[in-house]
């Protein structure tokens, strides 16, 4: 058999493609339904995956600045206050640059059901203001860092200010555990850009936080350890565990790894729910693709009589499947990108924010990752092509005379 000239070969392929497109158009309702459901499944999977990845990347990049080591005291499996004296023990460890005390906790607002996170830091722990671009703190932080005593001045997130209905007012009151009131002056707001980490935060001095939560003197919530050489973090963490019995030591690496797991798209019920959608689609695709109607067989037989080869018929079916699957995949994936860029991940954002009253505002930016693309291809396009391959072959090899 003579090899076909490339131009003739191209013409042949174009003719088959034309026929495949006309065929798809003839059965517009059937193919349109499969295309729409297919694109929807790809859109849902890709959106969930892109949201996860966007959040995971954000978490990884922002929390890369988390403290080297956080030391907390555990008692009977629960976190309790740690003795301030432990600070001296930690500072004596070779390689530890500084140790900062911190008091933090939650303030529940019963009327609205909102939880504020109150963070109290010693004045010395808050860095001096910087005029560098895209950096914090600005001059506003100096207002609460006036001294180590109780200043009554706080920094709020814009969300907390809105939620409290403060408007332009500066003074507000919170309850101590004994229901006595303590008044604070909101001197400034956190920048809106840091909403992802400060959406519910009220920053005050260590003494004010101690007073608000009625935490006894000589006790803090945790100690933040800064290590001179980042390579020594794990070694120093081990030493801390030996020196302070019953403490939990969280290193920055653990934080980053945990968030990777938290936002790992494979984990969680979301994928399980989407898996149901995928199974439903596979059943639909299988049903549509494998159901060889008498009309299909007749069409194949006529084409064979007209001189089409078996390879041409298989190519025809392949084109039909690739056009539907490829088009739906590309369309669904592009829509998923638009969903994140223009609608801020509207569909899946509530899942990650849960029932929180104070919700951070932050843009989600999709990113292109080969593994994600391959994963969506593997769970959508690949099963569809497999489902259509066998019936395509069966239809192509059927003897024309037996059908006609």
């Amino acid at each position, binding site marked *: 058999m003579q090899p076909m000239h490339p131009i003739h070969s191209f013409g042949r392929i174009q003719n088959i493609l034309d026929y495949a497109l006309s065929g798809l158009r003839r059965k517009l309702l059937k193919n349109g339904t499969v295309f729409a459901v297919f694109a929807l499944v790809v859109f849902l999977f890709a959106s969930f995956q892109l949201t996860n990845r966007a959040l995971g990347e954000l978490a990884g990049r922002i929390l890369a600045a988390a403290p080297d080591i956080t030391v907390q005291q555990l008692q009977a499996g629960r976190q309790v206050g740690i003795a301030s004296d432990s600070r001296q023990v930690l500072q004596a460890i070779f390689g530890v640059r500084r140790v900062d005390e911190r008091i933090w906790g*939650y303030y529940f607002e019963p009327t609205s059901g909102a939880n504020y996170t109150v963070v109290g830091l010693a004045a010395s722990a808050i860095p001096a203001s910087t005029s560098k671009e895209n950096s914090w703190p600005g001059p506003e932080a100096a207002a609460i860092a006036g001294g180590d005593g109780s200043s009554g001045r706080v920094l709020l997130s814009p969300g907390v200010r809105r939620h409290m209905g403060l408007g332009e007012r500066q003074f507000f009151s919170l309850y101590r555990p004994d229901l006595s009131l303590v008044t604070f002056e909101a001197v400034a707001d956190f920048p809106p850009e840091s909403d992802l980490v400060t959406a519910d935060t009220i920053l005050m001095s260590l003494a004010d936080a101690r007073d608000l939560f009625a935490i006894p003197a000589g006790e803090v919530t945790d100690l933040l350890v800064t290590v001179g050489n980042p390579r020594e973090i794990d070694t120093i963490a081990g030493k801390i565990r030996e020196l302070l019995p019953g403490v939990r030591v969280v290193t920055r690496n653990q934080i980053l790894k945990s968030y990777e797991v938290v936002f790992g798209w494979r984990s969680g019920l979301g994928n399980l729910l989407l898996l149901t959608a995928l199974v439903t689609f596979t059943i639909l695709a299988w049903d549509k693709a494998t159901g060889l109607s008498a009309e299909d067989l007749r069409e194949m037989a006529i084409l064979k009589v007209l001189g089409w080869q078996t390879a041409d018929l298989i190519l025809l079916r392949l084109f039909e499947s690739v056009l539907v699957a490829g088009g739906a995949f590309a369309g669904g994936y592009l829509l998923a990108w638009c969903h994140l860029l223009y609608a801020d991940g509207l569909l899946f954002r509530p*899942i990650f924010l849960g029932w929180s009253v104070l919700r951070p505002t932050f843009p989600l930016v999709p990113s292109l990752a080969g593994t994600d693309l391959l994963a969506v291809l593997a769970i959508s396009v690949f099963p569809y092509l497999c489902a259509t391959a066998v019936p395509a072959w069966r239809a192509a090899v059927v003897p024309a005379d037996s059908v006609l």
Partner: protein
Amino acid sequence: MGAMSRKAMERVAPAGRLASRLAGRPSSRLLVLLAFFLLATLFVVREQGRCRQEQEGRIGIARSVVASLGLSDLALASEARYTRHPLASDPLVVGMDHPGAVDRFPSTLFWAPPR
């Protein structure tokens, strides 16, 4: 004028014939559709680049806040302390109400437990 237009027509005719031949074929329409799709993709990718640049500034500020205050968690879900601070709260806090308690907050359903 007549001669000019005939010459012009002669020049245009093959291109026109080709165009009409291409326009009539479904594969040509597919090509046009693909071109539109590529244009849309390019537009969206450009938009993504712009948003990414904007985000860089936000990340810089958020990082310096994290570094200044020693924060360890995202303020993503503040509904419960173990969703607000998955890493800095009690290790056994999920299901803390009683043994085998079903967790009631939706966000934790979609989160893997911290390790």
